[in-house]
């Protein structure tokens, strides 16, 4: 504004009024407005109105910070319904319930390549009470021609009070990049006896196994689990004989949803989300969003707080193209948001693992507490921060 405009007593337009109240005018301009408003009743009233609008806007917008999201309810059918509804777009996902894998197990060849053995209690085979159901499962590496394809990681998850230790044999295992389509085998041995024992002992465990790329990391198994390993092996070797191998064609980064304790992927494999000591997974989902694969897991800590771990991995160009061709989209499922929490209460920490996956951990904790939690996640072998 030129000097002569400032000194001329002209009413202040609304835009300038707000700029003045927002502190966006130069000292000179502001001075001009201020002196005019002091002398002009109309502009003084306009200024008061503007102040009111600014304050009211802030108040109204802060109402948006209350997160009305819903956590997946305990009732499976309700969850399936909501998930199904959210997926009404044409999607090649078969019905969730029909895609249960009935505990096949790896063939000897798997162990020859250092397969990861994970105990799985298959609800279909073993009658369980709703209380102690321990959904677990991780597809195991298999051989596809010359290429060994390993699935995403996942240790067992126990529902309910018992945080059961899955039994994991720590072995090196290459991990399949999302773009590798190949034959995946769900090698899911069922060893209910070991899990029952673990349930009974109420042994908490944090097992998280992951292998990345050709330079596979060694997997860490917390000491609390090792005692179970022996008994589990014995049990699993018995069941091994009776089960066969199921091979399926895997898509790049299939989508999944967490339903009542078990993670069902759209390609039919059942996997389990990561676990930590003192934390229980209550929900998890994976989906493709743009050029990335996203996995989100919600944990309930012993303290009662709910935290969310989000992983994001860039898909290769091919995988992203595949996803686009199948019209996969980001399923922004509000059911997984933190319910009833104001954004003010939620803090986050973020880190990148060596393979480029970005992680965000968010929850109603202080940053210090989140950092500690991050440490436990990392210590369980789940994610390593960049050096």
């Amino acid at each position, binding site marked *: 504004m030129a000097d002569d405009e400032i000194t001329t007593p002209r009413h202040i337009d609304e835009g300038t009024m707000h700029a003045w109240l927002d502190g966006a005018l130069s000292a000179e301009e502001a001075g001009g407005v201020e002196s005019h408003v002091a002398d002009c009743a109309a502009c003084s009233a306009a200024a008061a109105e503007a102040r009111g609008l600014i304050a009211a*806007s802030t108040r109204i917008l802060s109402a948006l910070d*209350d997160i009305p999201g819903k956590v997946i309810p305990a009732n499976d059918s309700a969850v399936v319904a909501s998930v199904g*509804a*959210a997926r009404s777009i044409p999607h090649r996902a078969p019905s969730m319930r029909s895609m249960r894998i009935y505990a096949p197990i790896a063939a000897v060849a798997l162990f020859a390549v250092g397969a990861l053995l994970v105990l799985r209690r298959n609800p279909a085979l073993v009658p369980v009470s709703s209380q102690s159901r321990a959904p677990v499962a991780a597809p195991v590496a298999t051989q596809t021609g010359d290429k060994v394809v390993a699935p995403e990681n996942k240790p067992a998850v126990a529902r309910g009070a018992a945080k059961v230790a899955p039994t994991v044999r720590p072995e090196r295992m290459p991990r399949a990049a999302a773009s590798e389509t190949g034959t995946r085998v769900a090698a899911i041995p069922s060893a209910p006896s070991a899990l029952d024992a673990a349930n009974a002992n109420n042994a908490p465990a944090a097992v998280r196994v992951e292998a990345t790329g050709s330079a596979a990391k060694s997997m860490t198994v917390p000491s609390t689990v090792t005692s179970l390993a022996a008994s589990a092996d014995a049990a699993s070797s018995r069941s091994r004989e009776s089960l066969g191998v199921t091979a399926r064609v895997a898509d790049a980064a299939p989508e999944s949803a967490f339903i009542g304790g078990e993670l069902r992927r759209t390609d039919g494999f059942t996997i389990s989300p990561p676990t930590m000591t003192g934390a229980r997974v209550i929900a998890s989902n994976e989906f493709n969003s743009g050029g990335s694969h996203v996995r989100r897991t919600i944990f309930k800590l012993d303290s009662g707080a709910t935290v969310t771990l989000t992983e994001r991995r860039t898909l290769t160009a091919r995988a992203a193209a595949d996803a686009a061709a199948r019209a996969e989209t*980001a399923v922004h499922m*509000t059911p997984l948001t933190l319910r009833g929490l104001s954004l003010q209460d939620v803090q986050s*920490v*973020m880190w990148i693992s060596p393979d480029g996956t970005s992680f*965000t951990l968010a929850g109603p904790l202080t940053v210090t507490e989140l950092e500690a939690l991050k440490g436990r996640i990392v210590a369980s072998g789940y994610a390593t921060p960049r050096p």
Partner: protein
Amino acid sequence: MTDVERLFRDYHATLVRYLTRRLGDRDWAEEVAQETFVRALRQNALTNERAWLFTVANNLVRDDARRAARQRQQLVLLRDEQISEAECDDVAADSDDASTAIRAHETMLARKAVDGLAERDRMALLLREEGLNYGEIAAALDLSVGSVGTTLSRARRRLVEGYEQMQRADAGRQNNG
């Protein structure tokens, strides 16, 4: 602490809040925020960090929206239906806690009022709420600095008037019972 960690500490919360308010979807907001910081990693230096972050976030939303607009429409419609029904159920269930019910209702009204703004007006207002100055807002939205004030005044007026109108309509409905 690395630079990105500091950047994250300083700006993540405000970025997520802005995106949540703008998109009405906390999950989507978190994803966009995460992707924004991942991109920040690739930058050697950022002169105006805040403006850069918000600009990139806006671009990501725009690109994301373009790519999946049609599909998301269906999802959003379904989700909103579920939410509004669910909220009613929730409100009924939590009706012991009157403040919860009131808050949920206010959130819904706020959401509608904000969605009733033109997109640029909405973005300008939300950016201002996060403390961006006029220069940063102009840069993020590709506006002239001189027009930011007018944009904000218009956005605020429409937001408040729209909200109050809905409140009056609600009250009228209740009275007519």
